[in-house]
């Protein structure tokens, strides 16, 4: 196998980097263990939701005040703005129009009835619950186990929203005893099913000004199912973020994949990258391993988008050390493993912010400290770039910055690696 640029990882950062590099004219190959955070997250574009636990109102402005080693500072504000603009165009062209203003955060309603701060939201989730006033109905589809309207409505009332809980019957179908959000979303893709579903949903909504439902309104055709069902019900439908798998994330993943296919980017899924081949300070190939065989992919440039510890990019060892799994890049560890985590589960775990330190061109750098052989801050490998959750200096969960960092750093990498250099003979 051979590619101009190998992107390792298919989460928000790897997907964006692969598309942007391909759009810039590079020949790209994606090597991935499996799905990434698109499938696990709330289906929004977080830029900067919280700082020090406090809600951020103006994410772009606040991002500029972050420490100098934060990925946003390294990528620069221009890359972040450009990344968000690019994303809005990509999503819109794929039938996944998003609403929102990079300058201001907004609320995303969740299945637990919390209102999480985020920046851009897919249209089915975007309508503010307080818009126009009036009562909000929180409605589940009968038998769906990943949405509990009583809990959601109770928490919303706690947040000052006039919310009531209800349940809508499901039309007769094949999955009565066994369905997840994905089966339900696929069923709702079907026009006939939607038409049978709508009257019960309308009755459950009982004239509410807005109807909060789990984010399961179709998965195969962008926002079509949501728009159609909303028309049939005659009231605004608002998709609430649920626990994984994220249906909005699946929609977005499908859009990325279609775009990559259109750009001729090749894929190698189910093959985690396990090592690199090197020539001096350059990586010449990536070794990956599937169930049956190992594959070597030669490359000019390597982009690592493997995520932090949560994404499999970094291994947290029993002795408190950390290891970057593909290229053995330096990662600052901890004295012992109790330092990995906080006393409170809902607190801030140091492990969540662990990552690879990079220079202004997103190249991994040597660890500071007297014992490393090379000067601190100099690149470890000349043709390796790191993007997204793998980067040190941020905790995407605690900050609510996952998609913004992914887009900003992917954009920066695409700028750095374009146009394509003359191939090395």
């Amino acid at each position, binding site marked *: 196998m051979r590619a101009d640029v190998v992107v390792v990882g298919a989460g928000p950062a790897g997907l964006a980097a692969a598309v942007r590099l391909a759009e810039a004219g590079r020949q790209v190959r994606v090597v991935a263990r499996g799905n990434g955070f698109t499938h696990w997250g709330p289906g929004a574009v977080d830029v900067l939701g919280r700082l020090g636990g406090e809600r951020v109102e103006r994410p772009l402005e606040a991002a500029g005040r972050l420490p100098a080693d934060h990925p946003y500072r390294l990528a620069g504000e221009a890359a972040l703005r450009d990344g968000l603009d690019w994303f809005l165009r990509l999503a819109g062209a794929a039938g996944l129009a998003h609403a929102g203003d990079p300058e201001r955060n907004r609320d995303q309603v969740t299945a*637990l009835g919390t209102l999480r701060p985020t920046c851009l939201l897919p249209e089915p989730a975007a309508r503010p619950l307080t818009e126009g006033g009036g009562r909000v109905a929180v409605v589940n589809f009968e038998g769906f186990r990943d949405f509990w309207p009583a809990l959601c409505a109770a928490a919303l009332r706690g947040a000052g929203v006039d919310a009531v809980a209800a349940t809508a019957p499901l039309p007769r179908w094949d999955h009565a005893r066994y369905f997840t959000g994905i089966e339900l979303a696929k069923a709702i893709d079907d026009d006939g099913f939607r038409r049978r579903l709508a009257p019960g949903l309308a009755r459950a909504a009982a004239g509410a000004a807005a109807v909060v439902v789990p984010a399961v309104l179709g998965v195969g055709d962008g926002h079509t199912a949501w728009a159609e069902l909303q028309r049939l019900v005659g009231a605004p439908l608002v998709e609430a973020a649920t626990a994984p798998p994220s249906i909005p994330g699946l929609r977005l993943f499908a859009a990325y994949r279609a775009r990559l296919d259109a750009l001729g980017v090749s894929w190698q899924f189910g093959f985690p990258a396990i090592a690199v081949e090197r020539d001096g300070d350059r990586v010449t190939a990536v070794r990956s391993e599937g169930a049956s065989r190992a594959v070597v992919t030669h490359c000019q440039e390597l982009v690592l988008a493997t995520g932090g*510890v949560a994404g499999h990019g970094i291994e947290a060892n029993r002795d408190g050390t950390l290891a970057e799994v593909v290229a053995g890049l330096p990662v600052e560890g901890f004295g012992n493993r109790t330092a990995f985590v906080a006393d409170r*589960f809902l607190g801030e775990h140091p492990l*969540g912010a662990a990552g690879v330190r990079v220079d202004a061109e997103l190249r991994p750098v040597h660890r500071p400290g007297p014992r490393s052989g090379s000067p601190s801050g100099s690149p470890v490998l000349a043709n390796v770039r790191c993007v997204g959750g793998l980067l040190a200096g941020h905790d995407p969960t605690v900050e609510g910055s996952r998609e913004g960092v992914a887009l900003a750093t992917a954009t920066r990498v695409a700028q750095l690696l374009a146009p394509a250099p003359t191939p090395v003979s």
Partner: protein
Amino acid sequence: MTSLDTDVVVVGGGVTGVAVLRDLALRGVRAVLVERFDLGTGTSGRWHGLLHSGARYAVRDQESARECIEENTVLRRIAPHTIEDVGGLFVLLPGDDEAYAGQFVDGCRASGIPTEELSAAQARRREPLLAPGVRLAYAVPDGGIDSWGLLRSMAADAEARGCRVLVRHPVVGVERDGDRIAAVRVHDRVAGEDRLIGCQWVVNAAGPWAGEIGRMAGVPIRMIAGKGVMVVMASRYVRGVVNACRKPADGDIIVPQHEVAVLGTTSVQVDSPDDITVAPADVDRMVDMCAQMVPSIASGRVLRAFAGSRPLYQPESADGDSGGGDTREVSRTFTVLDHASRDGLANMLSIVGGKLTTCRQMAEALVDRLAERMGVTEPCRTATEPLPGADHGPHRLAAPLAAVEREVAYGELVCECELVTRDQVRAAVAGGLTELEDLRRKLRLGYGPCQAAFCAWRAAGMLAEGRPEGSEDALAGLERFLEERWRGQQATTWGDQARQALLNHAIYRGTFDLRGAGRPDEAAAAGLAPAEPGEGDPTTRVGSELVGESNGRTSSKAGG
């Protein structure tokens, strides 16, 4: 303040107290059991789940060994539904002392414990993951037992026979009338008020906390807190129990329990039964030692670690410095204290020491003594009368999965790891359970590899369905449960489990935006400052409910 009257107040909702209650019920005595939290929240819920054959004690403590094998046989008869009848092995590793193996076989024979010697090949056929170096093994009738199942069955039987169980009723004081206890004062934590229970007799079955009840009643009972650390692996590894055939030591047992395996255990004297901290070094030692028997444990996924406190009794005659070290020297047998002859307190008995396997026998010995004093002539029937549920036969690991498959009920699962269905949760909620922790103990919700990532909020949603509007911050109970579950994980977060922890964090703090800010945990709710780990001590706290409650108790009317 409300009050009620009964003949006997039993203090302590562990297996001993509940076994005493059932014994009293079968003899027709009116009794009320009071428990500060839920049944099995102390030592009875913080152990490895081993139904002892007694072989572990065969060399050094044959009295305990005999008690164990007798009760092992009885429990299989009266409570088979709580038992995983998996058997056990004692394996001899390279370097283990063969002389000890000889003493072991002799001790088992002398104690009445059947053993069968297996060659290395036979042992590995039975346990394929055993270390290649295992030289030989002895098969013994060890098993697994679900103490919460046992507790529920005994309590249900006692209640059906007219006795009462009051959970969330900590004892806050004892009303003396001369040389007698006239009443026990408890605090109803749900109603938020004290209740006075007038009684003729008091049974102190508070386990490691027996000394505190003794203090309230004005009698000295010297308990030794013997901390045992246990480590939970994400899969079973073994078909049956695997023990090291050597002098009892840290990390010498692997107990398969439902979907997981529990590695045990340490035995260290600590100052307080509420000290149930787990140090990472304890976890490492347990994993490394058990990996000598089953090597794949070394690279396995550790779910969590927890500690319990053994209810070891220090007889007055042996009073003195017990060294503060290894508590394995202290006998595992039990003692009934009659405070009339011992302390001049006419109507209280205490039961101390012992172990879960012998809980029924302990109750029998105590109630025999009490019945004699009360003039009750009805004999003990607990050894022959099966418990409710016994007709289901032994617990089989695959049974819950088979039931789900039969019903094609995959979509009904609230907890995929432990195969808990929506109907089970609904029934439990309809039965009055209001806390996720209670659902966990009743249904094993949240025990599995994902450590409640998905089931916790589903179950919270189901609890919310029946709750009146505005009764509590809707999410506080969920946050409490998540924090409670986390306490067992701080010493075990690395490798795959670190990924799981960060994923769970991304779900609850990321997607659901829970921060726990201003939402107090149980200790804070009780008006107590959370205890901090010792300075410079790399330990983590587990199960702070015990810490919190103990503080509440000692600062109450104990001196009165």
